[in-house]
């Protein structure tokens, strides 16, 4: 994001009035991409090639940005903030599309977006205020506008309360209560009692996570403005807060530069424009951390809840899919089945004699030697022809097809192994904690001096994560020099990690404790370096387009 762009953006919002007075059109010219809100990224920190540029944002920050958007539309279209919010939400925060359509046919847009009812003469107060804001000074700030609207709605409510329909007593059609104490209605004037409104909105917000609340009447598309929702939920601040969160979530979901933190009940957002396009995901692995906690680490590009560096999202997804489909099945297939030596269909023998007839190609063969049955002559039920040439060939063909399965299992087992180790790390942490206490008691080392153990363990878990995913990567890499280099790096890291692991778990000896400390500290540094090398080299490889896959991976050609 260029700096002058940011400047113009800020300038624009500060000197709102000036620009608006000059020309409405110029504003939209400047903001070509409606979603570039000038989020600053951590520009001054030097990034490693496997890191991405991103910025964590709190709910408050997003709300401020939303407010800016709303103010902009509010000023441009001459509507109050609540209407602007509805319009923006209706257009999924696509400002350009909204302005385009709105300038084309303001009334039509308002009707479609559920802001005003179709072709019905507006109540005099409402329409007059709208005309006013069109013709009046454009500059009129949001505050003035909304207080005006509030006043308006209040007077409307009062009028309603003091003049109920005379003929028959009013009954709320929802709860069938006669003469409810308080009623409310949206612009469509479908009247319901306040407690029903409150239940309805609570249900929409809590159970359906819906930010777009329409009138309760059948086939009525009029949407509830925020002020209305807030008034109804006056006694339920929790639900109102949830509603505000839903608004933020909707905004975030509509903007491809933003992603909501997937951790339960976290309200942070991450802005990562460099990973917003699908094509960018072939060159970077956008692992980000939301501002709430350093443990809230997730991938901006996909839904895998794991730091899957160094492998890119598409390949990681492919691998997980394969594991889910294949791993257990593959193990079972390996132990229980053989392939027909002619058509390679997989066959399970679940009883009967060794004279097999392939169901698919009708090839007859011997289960024991895999050779053709015709050569067995009359020697039914026993195979004495193991060494015959034909059966050797048949077994060769079979072993070739088995090789691909073996290959997959090779990678899968290592992948699963590291995953398992990572899962056991909680236990290991507890054990290490104990060891550190022991060290402090039996040796001269202080608390701060024994922290090397924890640091080493941190490094080990981190590297296991990297290692785990390198196996997914290696599985899909095309054989060749590049892959060999990759596997060399992988091997070096793996060896170093295992050595460090062993050191951490080795029994304590009071005499050699300083020696151990030295060794562990050195090894930790080494492991750290090896990990950097794997991550950096792989990331660099993606940027240079150096990696070639052995199958088609989404996004790569």
């Amino acid at each position, binding site marked *: 994001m260029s700096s002058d762009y940011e400047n113009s953006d800020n300038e624009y919002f500060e000197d709102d009035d000036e620009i608006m007075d000059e020309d409405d059109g110029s504003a939209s010219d400047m903001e070509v991409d409606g979603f570039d809100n000038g989020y600053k990224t951590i520009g001054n920190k030097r990034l490693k090639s496997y890191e991405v540029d991103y910025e964590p944002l709190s709910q408050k920050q997003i709300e401020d940005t939303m407010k800016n958007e709303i103010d902009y539309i509010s000023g441009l279209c001459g509507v109050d903030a609540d209407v602007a919010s509805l319009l923006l939400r209706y257009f999924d925060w696509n400002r350009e599309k909204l302005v385009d359509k709105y300038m084309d046919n303001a009334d039509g847009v308002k009707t479609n977006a559920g802001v005003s009812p179709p072709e019905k003469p507006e109540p005099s107060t409402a329409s007059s205020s709208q005309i006013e804001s069109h013709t009046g000074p454009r500059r009129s700030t949001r505050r003035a506008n909304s207080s005006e609207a509030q006043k308006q709605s209040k007077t409307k409510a009062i009028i309603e309360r003091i003049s109920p329909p005379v003929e028959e007593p009013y009954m709320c*059609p*929802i*709860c*069938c*209560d006669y003469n409810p104490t308080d009623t409310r209605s949206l612009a469509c004037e479908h009247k319901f009692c306040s*407690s*029903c409104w409150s*239940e*309805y909105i609570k*249900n*929409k917000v809590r*159970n359906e996570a819906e930010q777009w609340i329409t009138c*309760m*009447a*059948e*086939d*009525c598309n009029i949407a509830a403005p925020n002020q209305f929702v807030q008034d109804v939920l006056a006694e339920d601040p929790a639900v109102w807060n949830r509603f505000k969160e839903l608004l933020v979530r909707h905004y975030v979901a509509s903007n491809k530069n933003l992603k909501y933190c997937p951790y339960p009940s976290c309200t942070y957002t991450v802005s990562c424009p460099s990973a917003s396009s699908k094509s960018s995901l072939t060159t970077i692995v956008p692992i980000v951390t939301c501002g709430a906690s350093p443990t809230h680490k997730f991938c901006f590009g996909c839904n895998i809840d794991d730091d899957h560096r160094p492998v890119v999202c598409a390949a990681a997804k492919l691998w997980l899919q394969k594991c889910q489909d294949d791993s257990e099945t593959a193990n079972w297939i390996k132990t229980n089945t053989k392939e027909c030596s002619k058509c390679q269909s997989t066959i399970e023998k679940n009883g009967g004699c060794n004279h097999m007839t392939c169901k698919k190609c009708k090839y007859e063969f011997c289960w024991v030697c895999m050779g053709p049955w015709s050569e067995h002559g009359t020697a039914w039920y026993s195979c004495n022809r193991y060494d015959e040439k034909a059966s050797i060939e048949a077994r060769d063909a079979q072993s070739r097809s088995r090789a691909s399965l073996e290959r997959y299992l090779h990678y899968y087992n290592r992948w699963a192994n590291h995953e398992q180790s990572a899962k056991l790390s909680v236990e290991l942490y507890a054990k290490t904690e104990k060891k550190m206490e022991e060290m402090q008691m039996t040796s001269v080392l202080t608390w701060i001096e024994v922290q090397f153990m924890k640091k080493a363990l941190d490094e080990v878990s981190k590297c296991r994560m990297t290692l785990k995913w390198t196996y997914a990567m290696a599985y899909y890499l095309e054989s060749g020099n590049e892959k060999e280099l990759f596997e060399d790096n992988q091997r070096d890291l793996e060896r170093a990690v295992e050595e460090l692991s062993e050191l951490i778990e080795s029994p304590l000896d009071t005499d050699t404790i300083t020696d151990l400390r030295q060794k562990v500290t050195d090894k930790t540094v080494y492991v750290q370096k090896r990990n950097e090398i794997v991550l950096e080299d792989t990331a660099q490889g993606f940027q240079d387009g150096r990696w070639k896959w052995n199958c088609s991976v989404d996004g790569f050609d």
Partner: protein
Amino acid sequence: MADARLRRVNKEIADCKNDKSSHINIELIDNSPFHLKGSFKGPEDTPYAGGHFDVDIVIPESYPFQPVKMKFLTKIYHPNVSSASGAICLDILKDAWSPVLTLKSTLISLQSLLCSPEPNDPQDAEVAKHYLTSKASFEETARYWTMVYAGGPGKTGSAAGQKQDEVAMAGLEKAHVDQFESLGFERGKVIDALRRLNYRGANVAKINDDRVVEELLK
């Protein structure tokens, strides 16, 4: 809000009782106003005419802000109703629900669903395929189901006690079933396979006998 829910349901039941013109009937199952049985007549000029259809109604906790749960108790042959479970595919029972809708209006909507099936948004894919392949054959089957399950008028007069005809039930031709049965397959299996393949109307010409046998051997 609990009393509002009860008040509303009671009023709805009372309204339905007082309204004789709509021919919609609601009664209580096991004495709770939150588990009801609705019933209505099959609309005229449809294969369901003359039938009497029962619907199981469960009023959810947050009614009327959540839609009622309805399913057919009477077996019915309709693209938007599961022929096995009676589950209904209708928008107002899901996302198009509005709190102003009532039990009566919902049952009327169900009734009108019987008039205008939507085979392109089916609940029962097999029935929907049947509908799209041959509407005449579908209607015949639907009429037969109405006669057998919903007490509708049969060709032979009284439907009660009549032996159910599996072939007609599946909307198939007797000749087709006999043809494959004569190959030595069990009758039930033949009916199943032909139903799965949608062996009806114009489709018969498209599906060759080998395909049927293959399906039968599965």
